[in-house]
């Protein structure tokens, strides 16, 4: 009997080890090329995307800022650059204020400890971080509410305002009511500033060599805010001094605080410039800022006193950005720098240089078309130069005057243009070799 093997393999058609090795080598070779291309492409795409994101943020910032600067700040289209701006006295409505301060404020370090941080000298640090405040009235005009200023105001508070006739919106008048809890107005006070310092961030550059003292390198980052205080119609002749104290709980319209400071101690929930009559007899300046003060935030008697004394020394960024009227426009901001071009010049420069102010220790300066509130060293303001000097102002430092033309009286120097530079840092890609910093500059006539 012939043995028959149960399994008789036929001609083998599979791989040999050599074939496998060759195929594997080829696969590895091709995959290495593809992976390298993939890595390079990904890095290029990531870098472009990071730039695109920063560019998109900056586009929004620059467009918003340009619109604010282009709006009317004073009555009848009057502009700071008008050759006769100072000829007939200060503006009757509105104001324009620029602060360049050197205000130390507490920040939390990487170690968790709190120290005082001071912005670099704005007079010399053109490309570095500066503490700036831009504040002005913005009158948009027009009849299309879609282009108006907008702000969120909670319903209960706003209902009370209407009940007290602090705000008079006629039934069916939808010009000012955008949606539930959101209102709009063509007129508003607008402020741009860095802060708050409580959210100050020190970003650690982990892959960078340490400093000479062994501490890790870091970047100081800030947040950029835009404050909008709407101006809404007020019923003429309303007498807020008769309002019941208890009913004021939950709101703090600045007008109320003027009439009865005790009301303001209850809750600083909202801040409105209720009066739009422009000639309020309660105001010692013919503008609405007298009714709403930047310093207003927390409910303390001391600050209420500040409210009624409109001559505030400066805009305190430490207290900013705590109200519902402050919109966070951008975080991871490296700097928000403002330069101005004075009349007779074609160069942008820090405010102190533009106004030909005497040199100060820290280059801080303030320009305001109206107020003259004097210096306040405690807040880093060593010179507050107003455009219009109010007699008997305590501590007032008159703005340097220049000879008037054609025999006119000496007058303050005009500011004809402004240049604002915003610089953003991309923390999402901070560990990448191609870290991204991006800046945008807005130039506008004043």
């Amino acid at each position, binding site marked *: 009997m012939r043995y028959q093997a149960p399994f008789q393999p036929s001609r083998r058609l*599979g791989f040999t080890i050599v074939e496998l090795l060759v*195929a594997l080598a080829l696969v590895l070779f091709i995959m290495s090329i593809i992976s390298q291309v993939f890595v390079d492409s*990904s890095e290029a795409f990531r870098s472009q995307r990071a*730039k695109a994101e920063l560019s998109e943020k900056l586009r929004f910032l620059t467009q918003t800022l*340009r619109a604010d600067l282009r709006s009317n700040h004073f009555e009848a289209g009057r502009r700071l650059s008008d050759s006769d701006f100072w000829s007939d006295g200060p503006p009757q409505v509105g104001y324009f204020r620029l602060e360049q301060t050197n205000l130390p404020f507490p920040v939390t370090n990487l170690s968790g400890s709190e120290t005082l941080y001071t912005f670099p000298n704005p007079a010399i640090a053109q490309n570095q971080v500066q503490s700036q405040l831009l504040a002005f009235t913005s009158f948009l005009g027009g009849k299309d509410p879609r282009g108006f200023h907008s702000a969120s105001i909670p319903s209960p508070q706003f209902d009370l305002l209407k009940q007290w006739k602090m705000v008079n919106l006629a039934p069916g008048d939808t010009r000012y009511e955008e949606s539930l809890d959101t209102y709009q107005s063509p007129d508003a006070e607008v402020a741009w500033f860095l802060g708050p310092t409580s959210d100050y961030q020190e970003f650690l550059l982990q892959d960078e060599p340490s400093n000479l003292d062994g501490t890790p390198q870091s970047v100081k980052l800030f947040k950029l805010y835009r404050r909008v205080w709407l101006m809404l119609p007020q019923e003429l002749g309303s007498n807020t001094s008769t309002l019941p104290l208890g009913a004021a709980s939950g709101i703090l319209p600045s007008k109320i605080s003027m009439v009865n400071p005790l009301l303001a101690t209850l809750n600083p929930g909202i801040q409105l410039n209720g009066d739009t009559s422009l000639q309020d007899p309660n105001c010692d300046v013919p503008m609405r800022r007298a009714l709403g003060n930047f310093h207003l935030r927390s409910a303390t008697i001391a600050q209420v006193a500040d409210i009624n004394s409109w001559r505030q020394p400066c805009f305190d960024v430490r207290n900013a950005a705590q109200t519902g009227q402050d919109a966070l426009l951008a975080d991871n901001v490296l700097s928000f720098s403002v330069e101005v071009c004075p009349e007779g010049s*074609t160069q942008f420069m820090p405010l102190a240089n533009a106004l030909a102010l005497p040199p100060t220790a820290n280059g801080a300066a303030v320009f305001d078309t109206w107020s003259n509130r004097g210096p306040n060293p405690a807040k880093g303001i060593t010179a507050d130069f107003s455009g219009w000097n109010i007699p008997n102002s305590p501590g007032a430092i008159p703005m340097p005057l220049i000879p008037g033309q054609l025999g006119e009286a000496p007058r303050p120097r005009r500011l004809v243009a402004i240049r604002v530079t915003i610089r953003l840092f991309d923390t999402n890609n901070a560990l990448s070799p191609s870290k991204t910093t991006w800046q945008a500059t807005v*130039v506008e006539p004043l």
Partner: protein
Amino acid sequence: MLNSAPRKGLTLLEVLITIFVMAIGFLSVLTLFPLAARKLARAIDSDRATLMAGNAAASATILGFRDMAQVALNSELAPLPPQDPRRLQPSTVVHLDPAGVFSGAGTFAGSFLLPAGLNQLPANWREWVVSQDEMRFESNGLPEAGFRRGERYSASYLFRRRQLNDPDSLECLILVFTGRPIEFGNNAFIPLNLINDPTNIGGITITEPGTNGAPGPSGPDRVLGRSSWIMDLSQDGPKPRWKKFYQVQSAELTGVNQLSLTFDRTPEAPITNAVWVDFLFDWFDRGTLP
């Protein structure tokens, strides 16, 4: 009992073909990355150019560039008698290019006027018409030491009056250039030698720049081709057209030194005179703003 059929494996050739096909597929997908990156870069460039145009418009107001243009146009108006019909027609186009003029370039030899008084601009003129944002930064966010602010974007202005005797009808276009060398000047406008070509209805046919006596390119590495901008300066009446820009979609040699250009859109009217606006990134219509 095991009686399996003979197993047929893959040959090396089949494996290689598979790998090849897979590689083609991978590479096809990978090409999307640079394409997307290019799109993103273009969007970024558009953002920056728009910002430059906005700042250039502000600079024109602040420094009185419009007034300079008005002076130039007044000089065109002054010698005309009161009844001259040309007073009611559009004015000549004024090209105001502070960066170019200060680099020593002369006026464009075409239909443009050069306003007087440009040499009164201050020494820091470039800050106003050249982007100040194109800088490189260290990893800590500070500008690189010693690095001069970039000059990637620059702007020039075209002015004209819709009606020569009406100063209020002054219109303004802002041209934003990218990568234009500062010494380039007004030579960025390169006259084109047009060839009559009835078959090319979507563009123009020209003598290739730099040949047969045609004006050469604006630089040794400059090539008239896809994405180049052509400005139509054909005469509608006595004055050149206004706001007629076309972007080249394709450029094809159709004869000896003969270049056929196809535009992004069909010209509204036959083009009889045109210039190549080299380095132009985009143009912005600023209307009759004061």
